């Protein structure tokens, strides 16, 4: 009897064959998959195996990533430009197919209405960092020095507002005109503080006094950081690539990410700036990621179901290539996951919702969303201006962000 049992145990105890192993592997994060390349030959070509990649993609899109827990989608919307300035309107998107929109009022910290726009693509503990574009009706008029580049921290759920004081560095010299570029807003776990990082570039005023302007030579560009706890801007010296035009930036747990262009070598990098220790990491893009024979219109940085990624827009083929990053700092860990299209009517992405809902603006200005699972496009019922609409991930919070001690 024992011999019989032993024989059947041996027969039953098979090792897991590749087809079953692949099902297990397809649930693992990229870092594990790169490590397990060493296990055996067939596992070292997983990313070229279409059976495996189909499973990986399905799992990737369907998993519930904590980044999106209790979140809803907002749309920062500007109508198409025809005859003048179109202010931003903020909407909340509801419904399975986002068929319901509810307008959210901008805050009113000045007792007179202002134009606002939201920076970034996600709320931080329920707070947005918003750009103050001046008093309603004042568009085109010159603004006082303290008003330029003004930003406000705002919690839409409680309507708590904090107008951030102007930068003391931007207007130090009357002969130099500052270009103030927001780069990131986030929360530092270590210091329990909120920070904003901006870059200032200076241009000599054409009608300035020549001698005054060049008295001390060139006015160097600089980084500045604002900390909520001390309510002050501080100069910050770091040789870090600044943001290329057109990116909203991405934020994950105390780290601000943007597409950076290096002044030195003209290369494009993903720059990941850690707000806690105020250091950064560059991740370049492997040259073989792009089609050589098709010009890229741009790369749109975003989060795809919890992973940092980008959408490359190939004008000639009207296709969109979606890649994700396995590990920040490792250029070999970019994986191309999806090729969408051809979608000749689509102009550019405006953001990504949960689980593979990609929002686009079409060439006829219609805002649409594309589901990576069903591959269907649906209209939102709104027309938007070029590069002026954005989808935001919002997680409501009722906690006050300013502690009055």
């Amino acid at each position, binding site marked *: 009897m024992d011999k019989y049992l032993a024989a059947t145990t041996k027969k*039953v105890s098979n090792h*897991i064959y590749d087809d079953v192993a692949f099902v*297990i592997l397809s649930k*693992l994060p990229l870092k594990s998959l*790169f490590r397990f390349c*060493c296990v055996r030959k067939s596992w*070292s070509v997983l990313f070229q195996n279409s059976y495996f990649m189909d499973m990986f993609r399905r799992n990737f899109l369907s998993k519930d990533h904590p980044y999106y827990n209790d979140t809803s989608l907002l749309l920062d919307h500007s109508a198409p430009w025809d005859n003048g300035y179109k202010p931003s309107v903020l909407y909340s998107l509801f419904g399975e197919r986002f068929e319901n929109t509810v307008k959210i009022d901008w805050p009113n910290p000045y007792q007179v209405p202002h134009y606002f726009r939201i920076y970034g693509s996600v709320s931080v503990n329920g707070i947005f960092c918003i750009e103050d574009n001046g008093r309603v009706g004042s568009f085109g008029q010159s603004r006082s020095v303290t008003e330029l580049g003004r930003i406000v921290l705002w919690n839409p759920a409680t309507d708590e507002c904090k107008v951030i004081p102007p930068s003391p560095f931007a207007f130090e010299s009357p002969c130099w005109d500052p270009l103030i570029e927001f780069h990131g807003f986030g929360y530092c776990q270590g210091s329990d503080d909120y920070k904003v990082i901006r870059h200032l570039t200076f241009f000599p005023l054409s009608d300035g006094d020549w001698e005054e302007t060049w008295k001390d030579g060139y006015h160097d560009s600089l980084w500045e950081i604002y900390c909520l706890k001390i309510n002050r801007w501080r100069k910050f010296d770091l040789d870090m690539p600044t943001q290329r035009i057109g990116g909203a930036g991405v934020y994950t747990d105390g780290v601000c990410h943007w597409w950076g262009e290096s002044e030195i070598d003209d290369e494009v990098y993903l720059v990941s700036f850690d707000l806690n220790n105020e250091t950064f990491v560059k991740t370049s893009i492997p040259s073989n990621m792009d089609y050589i024979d098709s010009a890229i219109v741009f790369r749109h940085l975003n989060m795809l179901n919890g992973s940092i990624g980008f959408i490359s827009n190939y004008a000639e083929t009207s296709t969109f290539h979606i890649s994700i990053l396995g590990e920040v700092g490792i250029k070999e860990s970019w994986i191309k996951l999806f090729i969408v299209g051809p979608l000749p009517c689509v102009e550019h992405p405006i953001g990504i919702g949960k689980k593979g809902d990609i929002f686009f603006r079409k060439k006829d200005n219609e805002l649409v969303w594309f589901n990576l699972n069903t591959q269907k496009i649906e209209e939102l019922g709104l027309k938007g201006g070029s590069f002026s609409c954005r989808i935001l991930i919002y997680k409501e919070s009722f906690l006050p962000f300013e502690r009055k001690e």
Partner: protein
Amino acid sequence: MAEEKSQASSSKMLTLKASDGVLFEVELNIAKEMKTVQAYIDDCEDIETIPIPNVLGKHLAIVIEYIKKTNEEYDAEFEKQWNMDDLQLLLLAANYLNISGLQECLCKAIAKRIENKSPEYVRKVFNIENDHSPEEEAKLRKEYKWAFEGVDKD
């Protein structure tokens, strides 16, 4: 072996015979969750005892229990009781019997357990032979050095 059968009014009972000869009496609707068994029944309507040659009695018992109790809560706790060997054998059983819910649950569980492990651990656990040449493996380890950081000690 005369068994006292209480007359279950409507549900027909079926007997499953594991590879080591252990017999299990299950209700038809439970057995039907195993698509392989369902196919067997479809083919031979009058069958009362179905042989399950690939699955040991101890694992068949666990599978049947899973089918009876499966829900979100049960599934979350289910895998914690089993060691890696049992998980794999249960997965092979679930594959053979074609029970998709259990397959998914077990694949997820095994994935979670190996996520942070070394390639050596994975080879051992899955009983896989390394067919890389030493040079090939060294090259891969060097190229993906970053993927080995923070790995659990074996």
